[in-house]
C-alpha cells in the first residue's frame, strides 16, 4: 500500500514538472532548454506558413510563444483561433522547448502533441448602455458648440460687411 502511494505521488510530481506554466519557462529558459514541456493556453491568430513548416502561437498567462510543426494536420481538430470577439480553443500543447533554436534562430517549442481541452467560441461584446448615453450627450454638446461657433462666424462676417 505504502509503495503504491509513493509511486502515485512520484507520478503526480513528475507530471507537474512537465506542465509548467509559460512564465516559469521563459523566466528560466536555461533550465527548460531542450526539455519536454507542456503548456495550456489559448490558440490565437491563425496557422502561419513558413518555408519549412507551420507556426501556431499560444497565449498562456498573458504571454505568447510560438509552436513549430511540420505536420499541419495536427490542427485539423481546432475550431477557433483567438481574435477580437473570438475566444480561441484552449489547448494542451506539448513539445520540446528551445531557448535558441538553431534551425529558426528564435525561442520556440517544437510541437509534438496537441489536445483541445475546451473549444473556443464567439463572444460578442455588447455595447454598454453608458456608452450609448455618453455618445448622445457628447453629440448634443458637439452640435450645440458647432451652432454657437457658426453663429459667431456669421456675426463677425456681418459686422465686417457693415463696416466696409
Amino acid at each position: 500500500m505504502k509503495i503504491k502511494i509513493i509511486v502515485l505521488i512520484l507520478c503526480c510530481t513528475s507530471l507537474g514538472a512537465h506542465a509548467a506554466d509559460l512564465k516559469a519557462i521563459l523566466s528560466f529558459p536555461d533550465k527548460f532548454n531542450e526539455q519536454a514541456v507542456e503548456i495550456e493556453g489559448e490558440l490565437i491568430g491563425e496557422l502561419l506558413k513558413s518555408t519549412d513548416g507551420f507556426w501556431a502561437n499560444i497565449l498562456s498567462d498573458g504571454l505568447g510563444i510560438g509552436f513549430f510543426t511540420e505536420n499541419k494536420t495536427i490542427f485539423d481538430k481546432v475550431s477557433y483561433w483567438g481574435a477580437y470577439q473570438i475566444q480561441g480553443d484552449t489547448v494542451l500543447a506539448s513539445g520540446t522547448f528551445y531557448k535558441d533554436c538553431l534551425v529558426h534562430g528564435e525561442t520556440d517549442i517544437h510541437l509534438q502533441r496537441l489536445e483541445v481541452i475546451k473549444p473556443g467560441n464567439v463572444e460578442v461584446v455588447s455595447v454598454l448602455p453608458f456608452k450609448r448615453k455618453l455618445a448622445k450627450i457628447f453629440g448634443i454638446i458637439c452640435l450645440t458648440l458647432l451652432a454657437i461657433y457658426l453663429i459667431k462666424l456669421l456675426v463677425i462676417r456681418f459686422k465686417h460687411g457693415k463696416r466696409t
Partner: protein
Amino acid sequence: MIISPDRKDFSTIFNILGRLTLGLAAFMIIPLAVAFFKREASPFYDFLITFFATVSVGLLLLILFPLRKEASWMHAFFTVSGGWIVFSLLGAIPLYLSSHFLSFVDAWFESMSGFATTGLVLVQDLDHLSFSHNMWRHLTMFIGGQGIILASLSVLTKARGAAVGFYIGEARSEKILPNVVDTARFIWKVSFVYLILGTIMFSTILYFSGMNLDKSIFHAVWLFFASFDTGGFAPNAQNMAYYHSFPLEAAAIVFMILGAFNFNLHFWIWMKSKKEIYKNFEMKTFFLTTFSLTAILYFGIKGIGNVAMFKKGFFQLISAHTGCGFTNLAWGELDKFPPLSLLAIIFAMMIGGGVCSTTGGIKLMRVGIVFKAIFMEVKRWMMPFKSVYKDKIHHLQDMVLSDKRIKDAFLFFVLFLITYVGGGVVGMFFGYDPMLSLFESVSATANVGLTVGITAPTMPLLLKLVYILQMWLGRLEFLSIFVAIGFIMSLFKK
C-alpha cells in the same frame, strides 16, 4: 529680454490648439469607419464618443479664444508642447473605453507612447483587441511621426512666421525646401509613396504566410506605420515574434532604416544626387556606429548558431538604433542578454537616428559633431600654436563646423544624457536594477520602445508619470518645452 505674454498671446495659442484639435478629430474618423465596416459595435461607440468629445474641445477653444494676434514663433512653441499633452489625453479616451487598460493612466501612457512614436505598451490582451482600436494605436504613431504640425501647416494659412516656428518646435530644424509649406508637402508625398510600397510588401509576405487578405492589409498598414514612423507597436502581444517570418523582419529593417533617415537626405537622393548616400555625414556616422555596436553586441552573445545571431542581434540593434522598438525576442529574453550586449543596445538607443526624421535620441548629426569636435581639439593641441584649423563636414553641401554648431550639438548631447541618467536613477529609486533602469529610461526618452520588463501595469504610478514625461521631453527635444516653461515663469514674475 524675457518674453512677457499677455492675454492676446494666450488667446492665439489656445485658438491654434483648437484648430489642431479639430485636425485630430478628423483622424478619428478613420478608426470610426473601420469599426463601422468591420461591424465592431462597442468600439464604434468608443470612437464616436471620443470624436464628439474632441470636436467639442476644439470648438470650445475656438469659441472662447479668438485669434487676437498674428501667430508667431513663441506661440508655436507653446502650442506644440501643449498640443502633445492635449492630444495624448484625448487619444487615451477610446483606448480606456476598450477595457484593455487597467487604469486611465495606463491608457494615457499608451497614447503618449503612440504619439511620441515610442512603443512602450501597457495594453492588456492585445491579441483580442479590435481592428479599430489597433487602427487607432498605429494611427497615433503616424500622426506623431509625421507631426501634428505638418497637418496644421495645411490648416494654418494666416500665420507667416508661425509655420516655421511650428516646424522647428517639432524638432525638425532643417529645412528641406526654403518654404516650410513646400517642405511639409514633400514630407507628406514621400511618406505616402513609402506607405504604398510598405503596404504592398508587408501584405504580400503576410498573405503568403497564410493570413487572410483583409487582415494582411491591415497588419501591413499598421506595421508600416510602426516601422517607418519608428514607433514599434504591433497588433500582437509577442510583437514581431508572432509572425516567425524572416522576410517580414527583413522588410521591417528596410523601413526602419528609411524612417530613421533625415528627410533632407530622402529629398536629395530622390531629386538631386544619389551619391549623397556615400558622402553624407550622418550616413557615415550611422555606418560607423551600427558596425561597431553590432560587433560589441555579437561579442557579448557569442556561442549561438548563425541564424540566431543575425536575427536576434542585428534586428534588435537596428530596432534600437532607429528608435523603432520592434522585437523578435520572447518575453523575458532581452533582460537576460549579457551586460555587454545590453550596453551596446543602450548606446544605440541613446544615439538614435538622423535629425529631421521620425526617430528620437541625441541624433546622428550631433553625436558625430561631438566626436569630431573632440578629435579636432586633440589635433589642435598637436599642431603649432598659430595655425588655424577649421574642419568641414559634408551634409548635402560642405559646411564649416562652426563653434555655434559644436555648441548646439554639445548642448543637446548633455540634455539628453541628463534625462537618460535621471530617469534611470528614478527607476533605481523604486528598486529596479541599475542597468535595467537605465535601459528603460533611455528607451522612453529616445522614444525607442524596447523593454526589459519594467514597463508593466504593476509598475509604480510615479514611474509611469516619469516615463510619460520623458517620452514627451524626448519627442519635442526639450527646446519647445523649455521655451514654454520660460513663458509660464515670466507670467509669475509679473
